């Protein structure tokens, strides 16, 4: 720990904002998280220059994993061009001097909020999730010491109580995002507020998935090729949402669609939430014309 790495282009900050000791402590936590897939590892969360709830956990994980040769992509609800995504991307471009991209295929690290990219990730890529509430049992059991004990003792009966309530109230499992999963048959995990449409992408993913909760100061991880199963009932199996429409811009019927109201008369359009996927499809369609 003799050499303090110089930050990017005279920003005055250490490489990727956090100091080296902090990044080391984060990496220790991440190694433990990778060793115990789905287990929540506490870590010493730092103040970041943006408010809790805007991705402080994800940013700390990104800072700890970034190297000089990495190419960073940041998405928010699937989009590269929203305020949060732009700000975080620019933050790391400034404090780490690394290259950034909007292409899923060109990125080595992707920080995300609420989505997993449509283009399948490949081995060697890292997906970093911003997590608001890491504890899937919280809503049914408010005590943290009790939920930790429940995780330790594999005591997960209450998880299905929530799904039962959904069916009793709505006739189907109405949980549409942050849909709880069982990781490698051991830990129940909150996959962060991604739509349940993305849950199957967690299963046996070739990419490393890291989760950081800044306010709650917890890390967890899915190493590559980890079996991840969404919880369900035998007579009410896990189902993916379907749309009657195709994307209004690229015509995709495979992607997750956002509903947009485009005028004062309530006209609706459905477009891909993953902007890179949508743009890539349109480029290829235009090239063919």
């Amino acid at each position, binding site marked *: 720990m003799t050499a303090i790495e110089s930050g990017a282009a005279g920003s005055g900050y250490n490489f990727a904002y956090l100091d080296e000791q902090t990044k080391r402590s984060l990496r220790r936590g991440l190694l433990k998280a990778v060793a115990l897939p789905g287990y929540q590892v506490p870590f010493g969360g730092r103040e970041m220059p943006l408010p809790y709830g805007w991705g402080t956990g994800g940013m700390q994980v990104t800072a700890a994993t970034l190297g000089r040769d990495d190419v960073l992509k940041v998405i928010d609800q699937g989009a590269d061009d929203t305020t949060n995504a732009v700000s975080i991307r620019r933050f790391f471009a400034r404090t780490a001097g690394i290259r950034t991209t909007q292409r899923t295929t060109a990125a080595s690290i992707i920080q995300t909020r609420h989505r997993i990219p449509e283009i399948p990730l490949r081995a060697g890529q890292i997906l970093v999730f911003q997590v608001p509430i890491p504890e899937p049992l919280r809503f*049914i059991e408010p005590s943290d010491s009790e939920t930790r004990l429940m995780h330790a003792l594999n005591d997960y*009966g*209450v998880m*299905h*109580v929530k799904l*039962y309530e959904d*069916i*009793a109230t709505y006739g189907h499992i109405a949980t549409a995002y942050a849909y709880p999963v069982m990781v490698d048959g051991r830990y129940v995990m909150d996959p962060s507020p991604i739509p349940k449409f993305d849950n199957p992408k967690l299963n046996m993913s070739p990419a490393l998935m890291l989760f950081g909760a800044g306010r709650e100061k917890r890390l967890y991880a899915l190493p590559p090729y980890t079996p991840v199963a969404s919880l369900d009932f035998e*007579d009410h199996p896990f189902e993916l949402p379907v749309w009657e429409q195709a994307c209004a811009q690229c015509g995709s019927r495979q992607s997750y669609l956002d509903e947009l109201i485009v005028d004062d008369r309530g006209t609706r359009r459905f477009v891909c939430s993953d902007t890179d996927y949508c743009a890539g499809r349109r480029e290829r369609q235009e090239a063919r014309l």
Partner: protein
Amino acid sequence: MKALLTARGLTRLHGPGKGCQNVSFDLYPGEVLGIVGESGSGKSTLLNVLSGRVMPDRGSVSYCDAQGRVVGLHDASEAFRRTLLRTEWGYVEQNPRDGLRMGVSAGANIGERLMAQGVRHYGRLRQAGLDWLAQVEIDPQRIDDLPRTFSGGMQQRLQIARNLVSRPRLLFMDEPTGGLDVSVQAHLLDLLRNLVRDLQLAVVIVTHDLAVARLLADRLMVMRHSRVVEAGLTDQILDDPQHAYSQLLVSSVLQP
């Protein structure tokens, strides 16, 4: 017949004379043991130690499980004790709010133990909920209502249903009729007596109400200042108490 639950020299003291000390007994399958005594005599402490929720200072509790294995309760792992408490055992709290999940429906409350045991079929969970609501005389149409919309007596009956759904062999009850009015108490006791008989349940019931003890218990232990001062058959103790404190307890009940 093998004893279901065996306590030997059980001691747990919070202070001199506070808690329970040197309690020994055997409980056989299908037997109802009443623990009576004044407030602060250590009844609830004893129940907590017996059910493995609290570790004793001295002494042991062993339990003969459904497969006939005898297990030292406090030597076993916490995971084992928790599994017992939601499978072969039940625990009915004095205040139903402590024993129920107030934020989820009656049906989910009843189904929770089954889900914890791995039942993953909604239809079967639903049917169990409906059956047990009927068994404890709650209108099955209220299966989707929250417990907080139930009256005190109904909440207590729901708590009993939630515990019995896993077909336990042993039930711990801490003043199950406390806080209920007299007619509701009578109804609940009647229901309990029938369930205990039908399901061949062994019960350890803590109460300060001798009428409850007389109705439900086969045997009684009278506690005072953390010690068992008298133990025996219920009728024997209530009709011919030997210890001075038992005599006081029996004579202080108003005779109609």
